[in-house]
Structure formats: structure tokens, C-alpha cells
């Protein structure tokens, strides 16, 4: 079960494990398989088709997806998404960790209020904040730049990650940082040298989510970006759809499949670091 121990019935256990995982995967991956299969169908036959296997497979959709839109080549959208997602990860890591350290580990007047305020920001549906936020950035003349999309990450505006890090910090035994403090380390060094390395699983988790969620974010770029050569992928995807004239679902799905590749690789690369953080010494029972 939850143990990472190796029992004596290892061989049999491994087979059972792989079998049950594969069964689960078959279920989970079926819709994705459908998506990939759809990308190989002729564009006009995709919507409403109930067959998984394409009758006459074609790579034409990938061709039209890579043609780009207007004057903007397709790789520009990928590059823009990459810049936005990477920037967001850096910003989130810098700002949310120190905020979480303060809220989770320090003692100061007003901490309770601060914590409650942080949680409260999670509770309001963002649609009603869209207009006021837009007006702020418009007054600052920052529309059509990436600043409105990234500044929030550098200012820890995403309470989800602050709270996530706080929860992880609180799971780390205090003896560790107290020992550092007794050795004369200041807050910064305690945070940087002692706690941050211990938070690695949480940091990796946060980075993965930030990257992927920024990659998929649609509404922010829609509102704040005007120049097509700045558009990230989700905006480009929607441009194959048009309610009034013909919608190229084939190109859209092909583009969706392609856009999954970089995030998939990102996940595959980073999940490796999701290994035990403090499972090295039994400090506390």
C-alpha cells in the first residue's frame, strides 16, 4: 500500500501492481487517445464522429496547424507560451516561497489577519475582478505587454501556492530550523539553506502547476494582449473556430495535440525530482 518498503513477495506484487496500473491507465488515457485519433481524421469528419479509428488517416491537419495564423508563424505561439510559462514559474518560486516562510514560520503581530486575507483572496470568482484589474493595468499603460500576465506571479498573488507552501512548511519538524537558528543563522539563511531544500517536493509541485496552468491560461492573454505576434497557444487554438463560417476543427485538434508535447515533456522531466524530501532521518515520531 502506501509504503515504499520492499516486501518479500516482490515479484508477485510487482506484476499485480503493473496490471492494476495499466488497467487504470486504459481508462484514463482513452479520451486522450480519442483526441490524438481525431487529429488524424479529415477536418470535416471530426465533430459528431463516433468511431475512434480514423477511416482514412491523414496528416493534413498538422500541416494546416503549422502554417501559422495571419503573418505569425506557428512556432511563435509556442515560444510565447514558453516565455510566459517559464517567467511565471520563476516569479512564483521567488515570491511565494518567502511569503510562505513568513506566514508559516515567523511570529509577528497581524499574522492571523494576513493569513486570513491570503485565504480570502481564493474565494472570489475571478470574473468580477477582471474589469477592475484591467483598468489598473490600462491606467499604467501596460496593456499589450506580458507584465499584467506575469506581475502577479512575482508578487505572490496566487494564494494557492502560498498556502501550499505554508502547509508543507508546517509539516517540516521545527527542530531543524531551530537548530540552525541556535547556530546563529538569520531568517534568510534558515530559509534558504535549511527549509528550502526540504521543501523540494512542494517546490517541484508548484513549478509544475504554474508552468502548466500558465501554458493553458486563456482569459488573461485574451484580455491583455492585442498584438497577434505576442499571442500564446491557447489564443491561437481558438482561432481555428468560428461560429459564423467554417471551423477548422482538424487544425485546432492537431494544434492541441502539439501543444501537449512541451508540457508533457516538462512534466516528465520534473516529476523525477518528486522524490523523498526529509525521509532521511527519523527526527520526530
Amino acid at each position: 500500500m502506501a509504503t515504499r518498503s520492499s516486501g518479500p513477495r516482490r515479484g508477485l506484487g510487482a506484476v499485480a501492481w503493473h496490471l492494476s496500473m495499466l488497467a487504470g491507465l486504459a481508462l484514463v488515457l482513452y479520451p486522450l487517445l480519442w483526441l490524438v485519433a481525431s487529429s488524424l481524421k479529415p477536418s470535416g469528419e471530426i465533430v459528431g464522429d463516433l468511431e475512434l479509428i480514423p477511416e482514412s488517416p491523414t496528416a493534413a491537419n498538422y500541416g494546416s496547424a503549422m502554417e501559422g495564423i495571419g503573418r505569425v508563424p506557428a512556432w511563435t505561439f509556442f515560444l510565447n507560451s514558453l516565455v510566459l510559462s517559464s517567467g511565471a514559474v520563476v516569479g512564483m518560486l521567488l515570491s511565494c516561497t518567502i511569503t510562505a516562510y513568513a506566514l508559516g514560520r515567523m511570529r509577528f503581530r497581524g499574522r492571523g489577519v494576513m493569513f486570513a486575507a491570503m485565504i480570502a483572496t481564493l474565494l472570489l470568482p475571478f470574473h468580477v475582478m477582471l474589469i477592475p484589474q484591467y483598468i489598473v493595468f490600462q491606467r499604467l499603460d501596460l496593456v499589450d505587454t506580458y507584465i499584467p500576465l506575469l506581475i502577479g506571479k512575482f508578487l505572490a498573488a496566487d494564494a494557492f501556492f502560498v498556502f501550499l507552501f505554508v502547509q508543507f512548511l508546517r509539516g517540516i519538524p521545527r527542530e531543524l530550523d531551530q537548530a540552525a537558528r541556535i547556530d546563529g543563522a538569520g531568517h534568510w539563511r534558515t530559509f534558504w539553506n535549511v527549509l528550502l531544500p526540504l521543501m523540494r517536493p512542494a517546490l517541484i509541485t508548484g513549478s509544475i502547476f504554474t508552468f502548466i496552468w500558465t501554458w493553458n491560461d486563456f482569459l488573461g492573454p485574451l484580455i491583455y494582449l492585442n498584438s497577434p505576434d505576442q499571442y500564446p497557444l491557447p489564443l491561437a487554438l481558438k482561432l481555428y473556430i468560428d461560429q459564423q463560417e467554417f471551423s477548422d476543427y482538424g487544425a485546432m485538434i492537431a494544434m492541441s495535440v502539439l501543444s501537449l508535447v512541451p508540457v508533457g515533456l516538462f512534466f516528465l522531466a520534473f516529476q523525477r525530482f518528486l522524490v523523498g524530501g526529509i525521509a532521511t532521518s527519523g527526527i520526530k515520531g
Partner: protein
Amino acid sequence: MAAARTAGRPRRTRGSKGDGPVAYLFMTPWLIGMAGLTLGPMLASLYLSFTDYNLFTAPEWVGLDNYRQMLADDQFRQASKVTGVYVLLATPLKLGAALAVAMMLVQRRRGIGLYRSAFYAPSLIGASVGVAIVWRALFSDGGVQDSALGAVGLDTGGWIGNPDYSLLMLVLLAIWQFGAPMVIFMAGLMQVPTELYEAAEVDGAGPWRRFRRITVPMISPVIFFNLLLETIHAFQVFASAYVISTGDGRPAGSTLLYTLHLYRRAFTDFRMGYASAMAWTLLVVVGLITVLMFRVSRTRVHYAGEDDR
């Protein structure tokens, strides 16, 4: 606020001074962001909830009118009902699936990276038009769901066109994209010292006992986090319903989730004041649930970094 008290229980070695100035220094970026990006717009929307605001002309103060109209709005009632059902179904099912798979995926096995990535893969897409097309195909008459249920003698037709079942389709979509809580559970499970399990095994504790006595308490901060955040998230779910029901809560309002209705009021009807009132009503409801959860968590959640109570 209870949330504040639970979280804000300072535990330092006796005699050490408060960290006031340093703490605020650490929080400076967040405080700036809070003031400029979050608190300001939040208060603005609170103000707008007492006004008539159509986006094009200056807001006009109407007092509690929006809140009063909400009570008389049939669709508001419908949206609240749909959302309540959705939250109660989607949250526990998604978390259950996430925890079960996470526990399987923290074991040392051959090809574990690929398994993890594969289980996470559905969560890579988010709620895009592509997903909507696939979902519509799976849940149409004669689609996979219809055939599978038909094979066991249940004839519901495709769920996409059936108001009695269409919401389940969105619930299944939420469960399918269980990657985020799964990874968080995994990160939590990674932090549990292996020695604890080894000691328990020596004592002869079976898998269930180990789960109850070690896993659950040790990852309780993470369980709490996931439960709270997924609940909040379920109340605010928007994108999946928007793309699958093409923004209308079709069929017959059966997938009209709260934020979908809010969005329509705000950007189709241009009644931003009313939408803001809806948003603040949701904030109060979800806020109460949050406070309640924090209260319960005080006795149920175990923080290794803090004194036992």
C-alpha cells in the same frame, strides 16, 4: 476568523522575540501584490455589487437591489442547485481517485516516471475546445458511454443531450483531470519518513492500519489542503462547463454552474453589478465553509512542525 487563529498559532522557543520587521520584509512583494492586484479589485467588486453597472457607463448606486433580484431569479436558484450537486459529487470522488493513485505512484517501481506522466496527462490539457469535442463524442447517443451502459441494460441515451445526466459528464471530466491533487498527495507522501512504516511493519500492523495510523495523520496537512482547495475550486468551476455546454448551461439549464450564470450576467447581459453580488454571495458561502473546515482541521490535522495538541 477561525482560519486566522488556527493558522496563526505561533510556536517559537520561549524567550525568542517576534519577527515583525523581518516578516514584513519577507512579505513585501506579496503585500504590494495584495494591495494593488487583489484587494483593490476585490473591494471594487464589493462596491459594484451595490450598483447598476453595465460596463459602459458609470456605476449607479442601487443599494441591495441586486441581492434582492437574486432571490427572485429562477436561474440563480437553478445554478445554485446544480453547483451544490456538482461540489458534493466531484470533490470527494476526485480526491479519492487522486489519493488512491498517488499512493500507488510513490512506490519504487520500474517505469514509474512514465506511469506518473500518463496519469497526469489528462490534466495537461485543461478545459479546451479539443476536450469538449472528445467529451461530446464519448457522451453522444451511440458513443462509448451509451454503448457501455447499454451493454449492462441501462438505457439512458447519450448523457450530453439528457438533462437528467448531463451534469455527471462534467463530474467525470473533473475526476478525469485529477492530476493536481494527485501530485500534491504524492509530494506529501514523499515527506513521510519511511522509518515510520518500517517500525509499524515490525510491530505487525497491516496495510489498512498503517494507512490509518501513519499515512493519514502524516499527510493530514496535505489532505486538508487538497480538500479545502478542491472544494473552493469546485464552487468556482467554469471553463469545463463553458466549453462543453457552449456557454449556455445546456441542455435545459442542467449544467448551468454558478460561475457560468455569473459570467453570462456579467458579459452577455452586461449586468456587472448583479454578477458582483453573485460573486460576493458565493464568497460568503464558501468563506463559511472554509472557516468550518479550518475549525475541524484544528483537531484533525497534524503538523509535524508544531506541538501536538
